[in-house]
């Protein structure tokens, strides 16, 4: 088993990693990049805690080999805010206090971000369906769903400031 050098973009910055074939993307992010916003939950694809965006698509980083990410574009929760300004999804989660322990917050936000990229005005049913693979054990989901719906409204407001009142 040999290390291989790969090149990728992480939160907008070029990176060179030297990884073994059996290293998981999640562990490289947390242990080598010290980006601990992405969480380890179940390790088998059932909880969604390790969700990030890989080439724009919501992806489970605990079931992704780091070595397979040569040339990839990776976005984690740490890369979501732009120029010191929170993303609309982050702002909405903050305003709704859509967390208690906070463990699922980054995956819920990354998932909400992915949903809004596909569908700028989702219905409540669409939000609940899209987040079906992300477990929260404290909030009961109500505030998370409200925050996701409000994030869509907030983003629309930011895009058309004149419509804000």
């Amino acid at each position, binding site marked *: *088993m*040999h290390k*291989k050098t790969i090149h990728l973009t992480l939160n907008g910055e070029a990176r060179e990693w030297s990884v*073994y*074939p*059996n*290293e*998981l993307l999640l*562990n490289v992010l947390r242990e080598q990049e010290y980006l601990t916003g992405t969480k*380890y939950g*179940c*390790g*088998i*694809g*059932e909880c*969604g805690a390790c*969700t990030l965006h890989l080439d724009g*698509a*919501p*992806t*489970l980083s*605990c*079931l*992704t*080999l780091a*070595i*397979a990410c*040569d040339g990839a574009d990776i976005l984690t929760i740490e890369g979501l805010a732009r120029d010191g300004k929170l993303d609309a999804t982050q702002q909405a989660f903050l305003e709704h206090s859509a967390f208690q322990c906070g463990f699922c917050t980054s995956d819920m936000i990354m*998932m909400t971000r*992915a949903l809004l990229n596909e569908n700028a005005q989702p219905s409540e049913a669409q939000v609940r*369906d*899209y987040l*079906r*693979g*992300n477990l929260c054990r404290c909030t009961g989901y109500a505030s998370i769903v409200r925050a996701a719906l409000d994030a869509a409204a907030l983003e629309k407001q930011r895009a058309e400031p004149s419509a804000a009142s």
Partner: protein
Amino acid sequence: MLPTNTHILFHEFDYHAPTTLYEATELLAQYGDSARPIAGGTDLLVQMKMERRQPAHVISLARVNALQGIALNGDLTIGATTSIRDLHQYLTSKLQPPFASLQSLGEACNGFSTIQIMRMATLGGNLCNASPASDSAPPLLTFDARVTLKSKTFERVMALEHFFIAPGKTALQADELLTHIRIPRPPHQSASAFIKIARVAADISQVCAAVRLTRDGNLIHDARIALGSVAPTPVRAAAAERELIGQTFSAALAEKIGKRAAQEIQPISDIRATRAYRQHIAAVIVRDALLRAWERTQ
């Protein structure tokens, strides 16, 4: 007990990322049983973490373009590494009759675990994993789908029905790759439906059923019924199908055929459901799928 660390992958292996089908089959010819292809990885990496599979060579198919995409050319041909999400989007937006009758496969893709898994997992991976609980297999069985298996030197095509051998075991030889899934042109006046029962939306099925009906006026010209999570492999309910053909459709007939199909299956009791529950619910969902498919043929 097997070790079940899911945080890191202990097992060591060599990683190969071929870019052509020839290279991929050449690697399989070279490494045989000690190699395992990886597509989305959502099954294989879990099995490797649990140390249920320990391939010395992992061959990624992610960069083999010939395995991706969907083409309509007489048959509907689906590349093995097409993601469930891409397949779902194709089936729900682009199909005209008679291929619009493949509704059940769209429904199976839509209910396929989570959005993340739908993005990562592939149709070929779902079939090669050969889980009795595969969501994609029952609809494909009702469409008489065929699979193309390719080695470095040979290519063969077989009915999907013959592809599944046992849980986790398929007809693939160690040097073969599943490259395409072909769905023949469906008959006119046909329609399909898929119903899955699971504890929560993102869970693996306790039972699932797919049916396809072809009508001729008020008569059932042809019928297909397939079920998942009720036997060692996804299965057809052939006797129930035969009892439908040539009959006038009615709710009472759907009820009777649901019960008939439930007699044909061999479910087990496991962590997801008991044998008795599976038998009971199979009758119910076959009935409901028949009613739904028939309504769609109108």
